[in-house]
């Protein structure tokens, strides 16, 4: 009887140890393949409310993730709390099991991190970046009825240039940096609730300029409601490029480096990342699946139909660009000082 009990105990002990180890050590890492995702649920975090650009990309893409990974479901979850910071923290806290991914406004994520915004629990470089969705050059625009047509006009204005701004967001930082690089004095008119209101403010004459993504501003520029002064970004656009303007007005090397770093981050404006600390094998599987999803002709067709440009870049390259952007900014003392001045430790 005793012997039998011992046997049962030994069996139970071995079973428990085995299952515990099974949890701690994932399946033989080398043998990991797509079947790992079989029957699993994937959460696709969107740091903004439903209906916007970020949300649309997530919803357009999720069926194609399901097509190339045998997941049971991809659930798009909008978590706009804290201007998207709550979602960023959630991704940082999530287990490295490949079941949580997020579409991220990379510029805002990096700037908030560098400004040491209170409550932030993530490091952008530590996420496992899976793909770039879009690059987004920013344009500085003015009212076509005003005399402000070039950076030179802004320089020769005998007062501060008023920037229509939401607040301490990335588009404001972009506008400020563009003006600072040309030594143009500025002031911000803060408090507008979105890009539409910023555009109206410039049209109405509440402010002189604002800077926003090219896709947002293009309809108004084409309609002659706004005038494009300068484009910043690495993507080729049909508008005048900043470098020509910079050469003509002779801006300092230091400022040129700063604008270069800024263009670098605009280059990875919308990107997708998974939890930090994903095993290299799992990262490879996910990056491959995302590559297939992004190059799927049906996905590209639906994105085109929805008027959403796609500038896919693979995960490894996106990871490198994010890490480089963080490093570049960190090494630029004057930029870091400015970011901290703008945010003023207010968070």
């Amino acid at each position, binding site marked *: 009887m005793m012997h039998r009990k011992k046997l049962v105990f030994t069996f139970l002990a071995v079973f428990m140890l085995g299952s515990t180890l099974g949890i701690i050590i994932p399946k033989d890492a080398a043998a990991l393949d797509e079947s790992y995702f079989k029957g699993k649920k994937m959460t696709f975090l969107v740091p903004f409310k*439903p209906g916007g650009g970020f*949300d*649309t990309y997530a919803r357009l893409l999720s069926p194609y993730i399901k097509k190339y990974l045998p997941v049971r479901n991809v659930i798009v979850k909008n978590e706009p709390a804290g201007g998207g910071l709550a979602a960023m923290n959630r991704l940082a806290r999530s287990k490295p099991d490949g079941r949580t991914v997020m579409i991220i406004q990379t510029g805002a994520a990096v700037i908030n991190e560098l400004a040491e915004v209170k409550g932030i629990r993530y490091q952008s470089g530590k996420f496992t970046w899976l793909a770039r969705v879009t690059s987004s050059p920013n344009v500085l625009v003015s009212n076509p009825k005003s005399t402000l047509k070039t950076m030179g006009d802004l320089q020769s204005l005998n007062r501060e240039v008023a920037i229509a701004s939401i607040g*301490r967001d990335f588009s404001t930082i972009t506008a400020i940096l563009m003006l600072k690089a040309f030594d143009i004095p500025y002031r911000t008119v*803060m408090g*507008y609730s979105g890009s*539409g209101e910023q555009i109206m403010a410039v049209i109405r004459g*509440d402010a002189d300029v604002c800077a926003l993504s090219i896709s947002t501003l293009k309809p108004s520029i084409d309609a002659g409601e706004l005038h494009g002064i300068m484009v910043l970004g690495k993507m080729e656009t049909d508008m005048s490029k900043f470098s020509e303007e910079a050469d003509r007005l002779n801006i300092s090397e230091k400022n040129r480096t700063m604008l270069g770093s800024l263009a670098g981050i605009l280059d990875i404006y919308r990107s997708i990342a998974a939890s930090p600390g994903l095993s290299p094998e799992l990262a490879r599987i996910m990056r491959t699946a995302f590559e297939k999803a992004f190059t799927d002709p049906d996905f590209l067709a639906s994105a085109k139909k*929805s*008027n959403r440009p796609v500038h896919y870049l693979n995960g490894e390259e996106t990871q490198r660009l994010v890490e480089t952007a963080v490093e570049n900014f960190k090494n630029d003392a004057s930029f870091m000082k400015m970011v901290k001045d703008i945010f003023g430790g207010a968070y």
Partner: protein
Amino acid sequence: MIEAWVSGFTSVFAPSALFLLLIGTGIGYAIGFIPGLAGAFALAMLIPFAISMESAHAVVFLLAAHAVVMTGGSLSAILFNAPGTGANVPASWDGYPMTRMGQGGRAIAAAATASAIGGVVSGFVLMGLIPVVRAILLAFGPPEFFMLSVMAYSFVASVTGRYPFKALAAVFFGLLLSTIGTDPALAIPRFTFGTFYLWEGVDLIPLVMGLFAVSEMIKLAISKKGIVSGGVQIGRDVFQGVKETFQKWFLVLRCSGIASVIGIIPGLGAELATFMCYGHALQSSKTPEKFGKGAIEGVIGAEAGNNGKEGGSLLTTLAFGVPGSSSMAILLGFFITMGIIPSPEMLKEHLPLIFSMAWVIIIANVLGACISIFAGRYMAKISAIRAPLLVSVLLVVTVIGGAASNNNLGDIGTTFLFGFIGYQMDKFGYSKAAFIVGFVLGKITEKNLFISIQIYQGAGFLLRPLTIILAIIAIAAFAWPIISQKMKKNRENNEK
């Protein structure tokens, strides 16, 4: 222009479009009726279905649902004092007292008819204002927005009844509460107690659900009776509600007009239009003392305004990409997805599409009103159900509704907290109406005051012509009831 008008009309009446319009109207109405679920939720839920449709059909489907959400919302506001959104709140101020008097059918019919006329007017406003929208938009800047919100406060001051100081205290409580969350001017989180939950401020939906619905259910549970103390009148009562609304056609038209103009101006929110229309109905009434106790003009004014603002709001969204409400922001996102890019050119190039949108608003509103009028007579019977049964069902629906809109469990706590606060406010005679106005308009006032000071680098914005006109109206709206009352008293004294 006329060609576009006709082509817009015929495209809506194509069988497939008409079918989607009917389905959209039904779903929108049902979602609106569930307390706590509002337009933004309806759209977010329907977009995955719409995305696979052809763009013209998808627009018909979504817009129809959006157009009648408010009509459905007014039904729960009137029957259970459970307004689905902030914009439905004024409908409950007189609608619910009418239900308690057993006249729920009459109130529902009046609200539905006023909503329909408001919606129809707004559809025609959308068509008629296309040539002048730009001028209107450019005339209103942050200084004017600021003064418009001040005007709303002065309207409310006259709405609040017998205890002006308690009402004032309630307004300040609302204003104070609106300061929680990200500062609208500097984008700095304020009074958030270290939690992300409060970064966006206290959400309006759980607040409204708690303040009005849950507090009412506490009262019902304590009284153990149904909502209606006497019997429920139905039948002829419903047709009387329709008739009375048509008799007050001029009030309906005025309120629809006010709401249309407010709808065009972005950034003022859906609530301001209904608050202002309710205030206008009260001030122009011969029996203002009946307001808040079951005056049918209150229901008519608020509901005409509620549906009246949609056309204007849609016009601004399409022409300038500036959404007037969260629902419009979602619609805007969807339009872009469908390749309908908002721009001033839109008004020239896609005129038939804009006209068909106007027709969808008009038809959906009439359909929504028909549902209310025919279902209203049966729905009104719900108010006679015994409290224990009614409260348990409504409480579950309310709590789920309160939490579902943001997918956040914290909202359940908020709903109950404000249920308790609402109950205490009623008990001690503090106006919940004044509180909600302070809360809703607080951020608009603060934001636009701050922007105006920055633009003019001082108080110079107060000297803009339109700002001065609005300020005069605000002062007159505040002073007129006091002056007229004094004059009445003097006359009575003289007669004696």
